[in-house]
């Protein structure tokens, strides 16, 4: 049984805000394969293409037949807990601050035996256990032993919360609440137990449906925010920057044109102003405070969410300039992740397929419902992953892009099918 997490008391302003100490984060090139899968929420292990042996820890060669052909294969993670212990002392600063810490030895059904962090709900050895790969505070893959059947409160386990960015009791900024996606996002966060959701809105004189109703939720507070205006972003950061635990950047401009379909560069520039420069302004203004609060109590600052697009991976010519702005945003988001990771803040990049909104009105289904996108983001925060591709279209594109980006480029030029 995990004790349900209670809402933490207000911060004691007399004490120094604790600073983050990261767990050991050095990994070799081969070991990063484990991280790449964990970033998507998968447990993958090297599986020898010649003899079929599954191995852990990752190595350059198969431990049975020395083959170098070791593709990463997703694993079920089922296994047997052989032994367990509770760490009561550590010279590592991260663990030292979080003792006691439960550890176990598990023999995976797939073969290898692995050392894992052990969730409080896993019974005493010997027993069945479910192994998952998670990203730790340093953003590196670690293995955690989870119960086969968890209780309703299992996400409140302190160890698991360290490996995720659960919105429960956290304060979240949704940068644009005027769009259906922004509104669905705010609602999903409230439903997930967020303590407070600030909802940004630019150009207050443009009354768009749904915003006034959203503002009636007690957890929601509307705040003026225009990501195209440096001063607006700086002012809001000055007011609430020191309290925001999660930034969800939903600000987006989408005008659906290629190069030849629209004269001039003003629309493309406006897309870049929101989709690329908007992210840059937000990151410059909200990034530092977020980094400084990565260990600030049980509801410390934890994550930054970018709503990108599957078009960021490969240009969809019918939405050409929008795709380009999202590709620019993806590149910047990678930079942001590199700068945030050493501070213990996770950057979650979301690559949805076309969303069912006014700018995709002429696009045939399947289209992603804003509410579905929002719950995918909340789930990703709870799972602590780095990249998600919600929706059928995004999943299919991702597969085709991974299979052969050049072939996909040609297919997209021909209309996408």
């Amino acid at each position: 049984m995990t004790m349900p997490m209670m809402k933490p008391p207000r911060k004691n302003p007399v004490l120094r805000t604790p600073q983050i100490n990261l767990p050991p984060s050095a990994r070799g090139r081969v070991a990063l394969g484990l991280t790449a899968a964990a970033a998507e929420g998968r447990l993958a292990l090297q599986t020898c293409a010649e003899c079929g042996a599954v191995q852990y820890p990752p190595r350059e060669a198969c431990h049975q037949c020395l083959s170098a052909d070791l593709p990463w294969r997703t694993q079920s993670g089922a296994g047997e807990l052989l032994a367990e212990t509770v760490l009561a002392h550590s010279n590592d600063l991260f663990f030292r601050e979080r003792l006691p810490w439960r550890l176990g030895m598990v023999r995976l059904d797939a073969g290898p035996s692995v050392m894992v962090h052990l969730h409080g709900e896993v019974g005493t050895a010997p027993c069945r256990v479910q192994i998952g790969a998670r990203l730790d505070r340093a953003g590196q893959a670690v293995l955690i032993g989870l119960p086969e059947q968890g209780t309703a409160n299992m996400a409140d386990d302190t160890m698991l919360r360290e490996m995720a960015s659960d919105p429960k009791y956290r304060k979240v900024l949704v940068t644009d609440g005027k769009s259906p996606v922004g509104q669905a996002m705010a609602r999903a966060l409230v439903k997930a137990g967020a303590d407070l959701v600030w909802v940004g809105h630019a150009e207050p004189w443009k009354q768009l449906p749904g915003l006034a109703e959203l503002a009636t939720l007690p957890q929601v507070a509307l705040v003026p925010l225009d990501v195209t205006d440096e001063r607006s972003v700086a002012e809001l950061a000055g007011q609430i920057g020191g309290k925001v635990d999660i930034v969800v950047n939903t600000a987006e401009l989408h005008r659906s044109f290629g190069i030849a379909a629209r004269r001039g560069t003003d629309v493309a520039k406006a897309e870049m102003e929101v989709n690329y420069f908007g992210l840059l302004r937000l990151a410059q203004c909200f990034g530092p405070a977020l980094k400084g609060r990565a260990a600030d109590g049980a509801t410390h600052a934890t994550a930054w969410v970018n709503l990108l697009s599957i078009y960021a991976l490969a240009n969809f010519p019918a939405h050409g300039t929008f795709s380009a702005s999202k590709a620019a945003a993806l590149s910047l988001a990678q930079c942001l992740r590199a700068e945030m990771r050493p501070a213990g803040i996770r950057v979650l990049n979301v690559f949805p397929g076309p969303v069912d909104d006014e700018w995709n009105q002429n696009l045939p289904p399947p289209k992603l419902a804003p509410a579905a996108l929002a719950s995918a983001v909340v789930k990703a925060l709870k799972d602590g992953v780095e990249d998600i591709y919600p929706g059928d279209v995004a999943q299919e594109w991702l597969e085709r892009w991974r299979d052969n980006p050049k072939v996909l480029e040609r297919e997209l030029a021909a209309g996408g099918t």
Partner: protein
Amino acid sequence: MTTTQELLGGFALGLTTGRIRIVDLTQTLSPEFPAIALPPEMGQCQPFRIEQISAYDERGPGWYWNNFSCGEHTGTHFDAPAHWISGRDLPNNTVDSILPQHFIAPACVIDCSAQSAADPDYLMTVDDITAFEAVHGRIPAGHWVLMRTDWSQHWARRHDAVAFQNYDATGQHTPGPSTEAVRFLVEQRDVLGFGTEAIGTDAGQGYHLRPPYPCHSLMHGAGKYGLQCLTNLDQLPPTGALVVAAPLKIEKGSGSPLRVLALVEGM
């Protein structure tokens, strides 16, 4: 007979002694100042944006300066005849080619503030103009006509962008001139141009008048100018104010943000 030298000297003396007072009719350019909004699929006038280059810091230790950007029709601004399709073929129809003597001209200020307070969609009528003339005399040719509504105070005093723009599901609701009033000022009075306090020279619902946007269409079609987002019109006398309104000299510019000053009787 007064010499030109005496005229200019007297003018300068009037300024230094305060006998001529300067009223600033300009709203401050800021990122928050409401911008005109067209349906989102159309091209948009960019709002005012400003970014620091340096402020006595590592980017420039001894100096402070900014880059700014905006549309030609952002903030308190001037409309040249070429702004509208009806004025596109006229001579000297852009801000760089307008005769400079048009940048300083007297103004008649017609007070429609009571009507506008009662009805945000108020359209100034020909009767409003003739009533003004009955008291203050006929509007001379070459004068600005400024429609005072006190609408600017939504922003200038209360910083209320929602009230200033006043949108509902049917669009914007701000006062402006009726088609007949515009036609009268153009055809019967040969004014220099028309100025307002709201976001455009036309009323918020001006698109639904005949012709759509009559002030833009008829004024610019006749080579007249527009001024909008003016403020402090309540400080001007009905007649006798001299308006200085010189737009930026943008090559083939359709308009520009500008500082609008009125010279009025002082102490």
